[in-house]
């Protein structure tokens, strides 16, 4: 046998399990890693999706919570997993923030974005700007005018430094050319508690958690970060309508490690597409008042690239926070 034949044979033998794998994939349970604790947005999206995928694949799809360092632990875990389609990731917008923040601090990155390939976008909910109802501002314009009169005079809480809610506010602040006081908290929940307690003036938040407080008259919505108005608050203008260049979504999407064989990727994409039509899945998202925003891999990649660029710009603008002033 010639040497070249040997190589061909070797390639065939090596490729065999791959082909076989794609045909009867999955042969064992698939793990979907949610990099945040149970009850968090990633977990709440991952569970109904996994349940619907399980019905379609007729094979177990298990959600695993791997938490730590604002999601970096779980995302790095999937990024460095074997690309065989059995370890997937349900990530949020913050997936684009962590590598940029690592770059900013000259840290060895926990993972890079090109280690992960998108499967599908599941949901994308624009954040909305809410302030306490005792505060005088009835519109974004009034808030911005007031902020121009007294720079650093109006405060906002966020889920944490370089967190998603911080980035959303940063986009608005930059676009309006104002200065506001940032008070970071350890998560969106304590940030909302601080707003309700009157310790800060406003915040950017996901719509579902603040809706009951808006209905009860405790908080007043001023604008949304979406491209279109929200279905639940149709009278609320978007920042784009008001002339501010700020667009931000808290989205959840599924990813696989780079190098996952194409046939397996195709099967996963088909499965998630079908899962979006599952009535139980639809009902689950409806209950959480989160609209489905499905995008297949190619469109999701485009969406992700645009989103990541906006976030990278915002992070660069914020820069390192220096201890001395």
């Amino acid at each position, binding site marked *: 046998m010639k040497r070249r034949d040997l190589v061909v044979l070797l390639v065939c033998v090596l490729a065999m399990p791959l082909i076989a794998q794609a045909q009867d994939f999955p042969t064992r349970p698939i793990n979907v890693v949610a990099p945040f604790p*149970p009850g968090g947005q990633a977990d709440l999206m991952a569970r109904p999706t996994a349940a619907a995928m399980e019905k379609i694949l007729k094979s177990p799809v298990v959600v695993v919570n791997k938490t730590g*360092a604002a999601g970096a632990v779980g995302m790095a875990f999937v990024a460095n997993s074997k690309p065989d389609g059995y370890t997937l990731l349900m990530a949020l917008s913050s997936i684009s923030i962590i590598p940029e923040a690592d770059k900013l601090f000259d840290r060895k990155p926990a993972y890079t974005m090109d280690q992960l390939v998108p499967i599908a976008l599941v949901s994308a909910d624009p954040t909305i700007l809410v302030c306490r109802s005792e505060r005088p501002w009835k519109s974004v314009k009034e808030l911005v005018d007031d902020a121009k009169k007294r720079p650093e005079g109006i405060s906002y809480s966020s889920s944490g430094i370089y967190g998603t809610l911080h980035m959303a506010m940063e986009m608005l602040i930059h676009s309006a050319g104002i200065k506001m006081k940032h*008070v970071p908290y350890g998560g969106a929940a304590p940030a909302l*508690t601080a707003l309700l307690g*009157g310790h800060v003036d406003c915040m950017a938040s996901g719509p579902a958690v603040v809706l009951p*407080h808006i209905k009860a008259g405790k908080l007043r919505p001023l604008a949304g970060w979406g491209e279109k108005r929200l279905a639940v608050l149709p009278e609320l203008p978007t920042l784009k309508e008001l002339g501010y260049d700020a667009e931000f979504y808290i989205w959840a999407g599924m990813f696989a490690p780079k190098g996952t064989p194409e046939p397996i990727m195709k099967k996963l994409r088909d499965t998630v597409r079908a899962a979006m039509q599952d009535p139980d899945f639809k009902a689950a998202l409806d209950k959480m008042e989160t609209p489905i925003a499905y995008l297949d891999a190619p469109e999701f990649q485009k969406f992700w690239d645009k989103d990541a660029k906006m976030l990278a710009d915002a992070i660069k603008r914020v820069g390192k926070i220096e201890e001395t002033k």
Partner: protein
Amino acid sequence: MFETLQNLGHGFAIAASPGVLVYAFAGCVIGTLVGMLPGVGPLAGISLLLPASYGLSATTALVMLAGIYYGAMYGGSTTSILMRIPGEAASVMTCIDGYAMTRKGRAGPALAIAAVGSYIAGTASIVGLMLLAPPLAAFALSFGPSEYVALLLLGLTVLAYMSGGSVPKSLAMAALGLLLGMIGIDPMSGYFRFSYGLVELGDGIGIVPVAVGLFGVSEILLTAGQAETPQVIKPKLRDLLPSREEWRDAAGPVGRGTILGFLIGIVPGSAHIIASFVSYAVERRVSKHPERFGHGAVEGVAGPESANNSATSGALVPMLALGVPSGPIPAVMMAAMMVHGVSPGPMLIQQQPELFWGVIASMYVGNLVLLILNLPLVGLFVNLLRIPYPLLYPAILVFSVVGVYAVNGSVVDVWIMAVMGALGYLLRKLDFETAPIVLGLVLAPMLEMSLRQALALSSGSYAIFVTRPISASMLCVALALLLLSLRPLVARGADWRRRLGLLEGPVVGEEEKR
């Protein structure tokens, strides 16, 4: 009042329906188990079982999750008392005197008092939750960053009362705990501190692996290091029940612990842990025989165990009344509500009365179930001590490793536990107390966050701490406590002068003679 009773009656009708009752019972049993397993505490238990609750109705899910929460407070005391291993972080203080009681052959009474104290505190605090929820929740919301700083400083001054041994040694340990609490991402600037490239250290060092390592693993190492195998304690039936004197000693601490725990529980944060620390310190302070603490004082078990139980009801106040997550556990429970399409918010009590009153009523039932469950089990648990050490301790070590790993699925946590076990062994050999390390570790990140938030709000002015009434008054109390704790030092100083005077006396006298 009549309306409240009517609502409560309606709630009991819901709680007593078989479908709900079964899950309340299941929650209590699971809670007891996660409380007993070292490492796995209520947060991990609720998080792990949250997905299982997605299939239930909102009320049933919440009843079960609440059952896990307060059930864990019952279970946590068991391993603390019997083996000096905190089943969950709020039982750290119970380890000290509870285990000392076990060594004296009073494991049964310690367990019984912990169960009864928990029951009284649990039930009494639900009354508080039921009657006072809306006004108290509004008060809790008024706690901003500056109020937290004052509260935490108050917590730190409590340290001075905590230790039975030397004050410098316990302060050194508290400082070590505070330093350990500095590890992780800087909350204001995003820098990684002392993480040595380990992403897992980004969130800092967890309380659970530290507590299990410092208390449990170090105890196992110490026992293994003894020349002879310690005598297996054979409990007699007669020793299972507390004596009348022990009941009497426990009454005051249970009452104080209940009130303290409830009040601390309302304030957002890791309430049940801090409540148990503060209660222990208070009991030691008010006791006529503070020297008994650390050597098997009943008060040291009754106080903290009541406090951590009533803190669980306190923590539910802001969540149920205002839809505000007052800590990590209520936050997970709120997620459970949202999955069922129930929006936790200020209108919850009006819009979902069956949920609010059903949960309240189920807590009365659940606490009773736990008491009935736990008291007869005292006899069984105490008999665990009959297991010879060569079998018992390796098994505990396995449970500790599994428990600590299970919380985050992180091997780093297991390593932290191992290192802390070695450190705890060394420190205890050198006669240092390890409880202040845990308290320091709990308080440091909260204190840092609140301090820097407060200063961010005030643009760097420290006046914010004294111009706001709640924070100013708490700082005054902290200062008063600090001065009180200095009194023995001053008094001892006076003592020393008097002794010197006595010494000088005769000398002067002799001079006169000459």
